[in-house]
C-alpha cells in the first residue's frame, strides 16, 4: 500500500526538495528499501542510522514493524541514549 | 627495591603482608588481603571511596602508605557487620534505597559510622559536612543523609 513518509528538512536536498515522499510498502524495512530505490542518495543517511516515528511511537530499529496508509510516518535521525 | 614486611590488625584479625614502600594502604588491603570493599575512585584523597578507620580515625587509605599500617588497628566496611547481623546503618541504607550503583557505599558507611561514634546526634548540616569527603554521583545524597539521620535517631533510642 502507499504510505507517506515525512523527511527532516536536512534530507530534502537529497529528494529534489520533497518533504513528503510516497512509497509502496507494508513494513518499515520495505519502506526504507523503496525510499532508496526512488532516491538513491538516501542510502547514506539511512545507513548512518534512522529511527522511524509511526503515529508518534518511535521505532528505533524494527524493520518488520508494519506501516499503513493511515499512519503518520516520520523519518528521524537515529536516537542514541546515555 | 625489596619489599617490606608489615604486621597489622584489620577488622580484629592479625594479618601480615609484604609490600613495596610505594604501595598505599588501599593497594595493600585490596591486592594483598583481598579486602576489595574499599575502592579507588581518585587516588588523591578527594572522593572518600577508600575510607577506612585507622586506630578509630577516619582516613583515606589512598593517602596512607601500606608500610604505615604496621602495628595499627584498621577497620574496613567488611568489618561492620557482626556475622549475619548487619550494622544499623547498613540495614537502613538498603531500606531507604540510599545506594544506586553502590561504589561509594562502603566509604560512605565507614564515614557515617565514624560520625555516629563521634556525634550520636548530628544535625542535617553536620551530617552533610562530615560526609562532604565522600563523593556520590548517583543519589544526590538525599536518601543517604536521611538514612544516616534516621539511623542516628534509632541508635539513640535503642541505647
Amino acid at each position, binding site marked *: 500500500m502507499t504510505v507517506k513518509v515525512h523527511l527532516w528538512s536536512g534530507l530534502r536536498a537529497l529528494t529534489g526538495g520533497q518533504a513528503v515522499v510516497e512509497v509502496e510498502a507494508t513494513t518499515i524495512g520495505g519502506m526504507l528499501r523503496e525510499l532508496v530505490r526512488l532516491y538513491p542518495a538516501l542510502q547514506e543517511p539511512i545507513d548512518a542510522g534512522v529511527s522511524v516515528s509511526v503515529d508518534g511511537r518511535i521505532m*528505533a530499529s524494527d524493520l518488520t514493524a508494519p506501516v499503513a496508509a493511515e499512519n503518520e510516518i516520520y523519518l528521524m535521525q537515529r536516537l*542514541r*541514549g546515555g | 627495591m625489596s619489599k617490606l614486611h608489615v604486621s597489622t590488625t584489620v577488622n580484629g584479625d592479625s594479618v601480615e603482608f609484604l609490600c613495596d614502600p610505594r604501595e598505599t594502604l588501599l593497594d595493600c588491603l585490596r591486592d594483598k588481603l583481598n579486602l576489595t570493599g*574499599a575502592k579507588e575512585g581518585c587516588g588523591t584523597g578527594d572522593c572518600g571511596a577508600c575510607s577506612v578507620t585507622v586506630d578509630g580515625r577516619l582516613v583515606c587509605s589512598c593517602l596512607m602508605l601500606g608500610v604505615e599500617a604496621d602495628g595499627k588497628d584498621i577497620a574496613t566496611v567488611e568489618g561492620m557487620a557482626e556475622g549475619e547481623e548487619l550494622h544499623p546503618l547498613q540495614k537502613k541504607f538498603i531500606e531507604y534505597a540510599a545506594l544506586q550503583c553502590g561504589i561509594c557505599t562502603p566509604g560512605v558507611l565507614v564515614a557515617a559510622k565514624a560520625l555516629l561514634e563521634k556525634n550520636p546526634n548530628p544535625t542535617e548540616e553536620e551530617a552533610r*559536612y562530615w560526609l562532604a569527603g565522600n*563523593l556520590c*554521583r548517583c543519589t544526590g*545524597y*538525599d536518601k543517604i543523609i536521611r538514612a544516616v539521620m534516621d539511623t542516628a535517631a534509632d541508635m539513640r533510642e535503642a541505647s
Partner: protein
Amino acid sequence: MALDDQKSVFKFVGTRPDRPDGLDKVTGRAKFGADAYAAGMLHGAILRSPHAHARIVKIDASKAEAHRDVKAVVTRADFSDKVEFKPGLAGEFWNVLENVMAGEKALYDGHAVAAVAATSALAARDALKLIEVEYEVLPHVTDVDKAMAADAPVIREGAADYSVPEGLHPNVVRYHESGHGDVEAGFAEADLVIEDSFTTEATHQGYIEPHACLASLGGDGKGELWCCTQGHWIAQKTCAALLGIETAQLRVTASEIGGGFGGKTTVFIEPVALALSRKANRPVKIVMSRSEVFRATGPTSSASMDIKIGMKKDGTITAAEGIFRLQGGAFPGAPGDMTAMCAFAPYDLSNVRQVGYDVMANRPKQAAYRAPGAPMGAFAVESVLDELCNQLGLDPLDVRLKNAAHDGSKASYGPTYDQIGLVKTLEEAKAHPHYAAPLKPGQGRGISCGFWFNHGGETSVSLALSEDGSAQLMVGTPDIGGSRASMALMAVEVLGIPYENIRVTVADTATLGYNDVSHGSRVTYASGLATIKAAKHAVEKLCERAAAKWGIPVDAVKWEDGCAVPSGPNAGDFDPLPLADITANMGATGGPISGHFEATPEGAGVSFGTHIVDAEVDPETGKTAITRYTVIQDAGKAIHPAYVEGQYQGGAAQGIGWALNEEYIYGEDGRLQNSIFLDYRIPVASDLPMIDTVIVEVPNPGHPFGVRGVGETGIVPPLAAIANAVSNAAGVRMRDLPMSPPRILAALKARDG
C-alpha cells in the same frame, strides 16, 4: 507490536522492597571492575600523548621490551588492520579503534599511543617511562566555534558525511536541520523577539568508579573479558572487531558497575588489555587512574548556541529558532542532532526551525551523558523563555502551560505526540507548595521543562523455574541503578510468587542472547517488558501442565495469584494448583519450564519533566547556594518508586554540578588543566539540599505496565532551571555555563558598570 491489555492494578509493582543485591553492596562483597584477580595476572598501563595534536613520528619501545618485568608492549600495529574508515558515524568501529590506540596522529592530550603489560602495577607504570616517542607537534584547536573557522587546524580530512553542506570546514562532520512552518512570518507576528547566544562547556559523567577490566585472550582467538560496562554485548562486538577475532569466541562478563551515565557505553581500555594479553599469553588487568578518566574517556560535548524566540503579549510563542554547534572531540559523534530535536520539544509550535552541527576538535572522543545533547539545548531555550516572561511580565509556569505540547500536538521534530505527560508535570508544579513558597531577599526562583526520547533496543531475557517453585531471571542489562529489584517486581507480578523467591542475574555474553546497552532509559522499559513476556511465556507452559493434569483444554486454565485455576465454573471443579506443585515434578510432565523473550521492543514512551529551583547568590563571593529543589517528572508507571525517586534526584544533582561548577578547562597548549576531583568539582553532600520529587504517572501505551524510562530526563531541566534561578537572584542573565563564582562576580561587575 500487539500489546497486551495494559495492567493498572498491581500487587507487587509500586511497592518498595529491599533490592536483591543490597547485602552485597553494603558489605563490600559486590565485585566491581577492579575487584577481579587471576592467577598469573599482569598489570597493564597506557602511555598517553602529552600533546593536543601531534604527528607520531616514531615509537621506540625497545628499552621497555627489554625490561625483565615487562611481558608485552602494544601499539596500533597490534590491532586489526581490517577495520575500515568511513565518514560520519558509518565507520564507528574505526573511530573507536583510532581512539583506543592512536594511529598516525595523537589527537588530544591523553590520547593512547602505546601500552605495556608488566608483573606489577608499579612496574607497568615505571616501564612507560622507557618508551620513547618522537612527536611533531601540530597546531591544535579545542573551542567549537574556532574549530569551524576557516583557519582551524584540520583534525581529519574526509570525515564529513552526506549531510554537511558545501563550503564548511572539514572539522564539521555532520549537519542536522529540521522544523516546520515559517519562522520569519512567526517572528513578524510577535510582540517581543529575543535573540541570544549561550555556551556550555564539556563536563564528565563523573562516575566514581574508574574504568577497569581483566582480559584474557589466547592465540586461538578465544578470550574472556571482565569489565565494568553498561553494555557487554557492545563491548564484545567492538573488542572482537578491533582484535580481529570472532565475536562469539569472546566471552564478556559485566562486573557490578560503579556508575556509567552513558560514559561506559563504549570501550577505552578493554581492547588494549586484550591485545596485551594475547601478546603476553597471560591475563592482563588495566585500571584507569582518575586523571586518565578525565583526559581519555568520553566527556560530553561543549556547545555554542544561538536562540531566537518570538512571543505575543499574551504569552503565545509565535516562532522559535535554534542553531546548535557542538564539538565531540576528535571524532564524529557530538549529538548536535539530538540537541536540535529536543530543544523545543516541550512546546506546541506552528513555526520552528533547528539546526545542529557536529564538529571535531582536539579533545577526547565524547560519549553519552544522560540524555546526550538535550541539557545544552534546554539551557539555552528555557533561558530565553524566562527572559521573555520577565520582560513581558508573565508567569513562567503559565506561559509554559499555554504553549505546552499535549496529546496530538505536532512535535518540534516532526511527528504527532501520542499520550504524553508534560501538562500534568506543569500542573503539579503550579500546585506544588514550592512554587508558592516566599523567597528571601537575594534568592531567585527558576523553572524549566525538559524532554527526552527514551529508547527500546535489542533485549533478550530468560526465566527458569526451579523444582522448588523459585525462579531465576537472567537479564542482559547491567544493573546501574537498582534495576534488579524492578525486574524482580515485574516478574513476580506475573508469576504471583513472593518477591523473595526470585533471583535476578545479569548474564554474560555466552549465557544469554544479544542485549543492547543499559542506556537510553531503557532498562525498566525494555528488559522489564521482556521480563514480563518471558514470565508470561513460562506461565503459558505452567497452565499447559495444569490442563494436562486436570484433563481439560489449556484455554480453560488461567493463572491467578501464583496458581493455575480453572478459568470458569464450566471448566471443572479443581483446587488451585500452586506453581511449586507444578514445578516439583516438571521433569516428568514435559521437562524443565522456562520462559524466553528475544525482541527489539519499540514503543518506548517519551518523557517530560518540570523542575523548580530556588537559589541564593552571595554578591561578595559569587557563590550560589541551592536552597530548594523539586523534580516533577512523568514515569509512566513507577515500578519501584524509591529507585525512580533516586533517578530524579541523581539527574538533578548532576545538573546542579554542570550548571554551577563543572567544566573542562583547557590551557593555551590544549592540555586539560583540571583532571582530578579536587579541580573538577562535582557536588558534595554539603552543597545540596534535600531534593524533593513528584512522580507523575501518565501510562505509556507501549509497555504492558505503562513504564516510561526515567533515567535521563532528569538531567535536562536543571541547567536552565538553575540558570533562571541564579539570573533572577543575581539580577543578571547568565549565558555561559558553568555559573562559577568568578563568572557570577564578573557578570555582577559588568552589570554595575
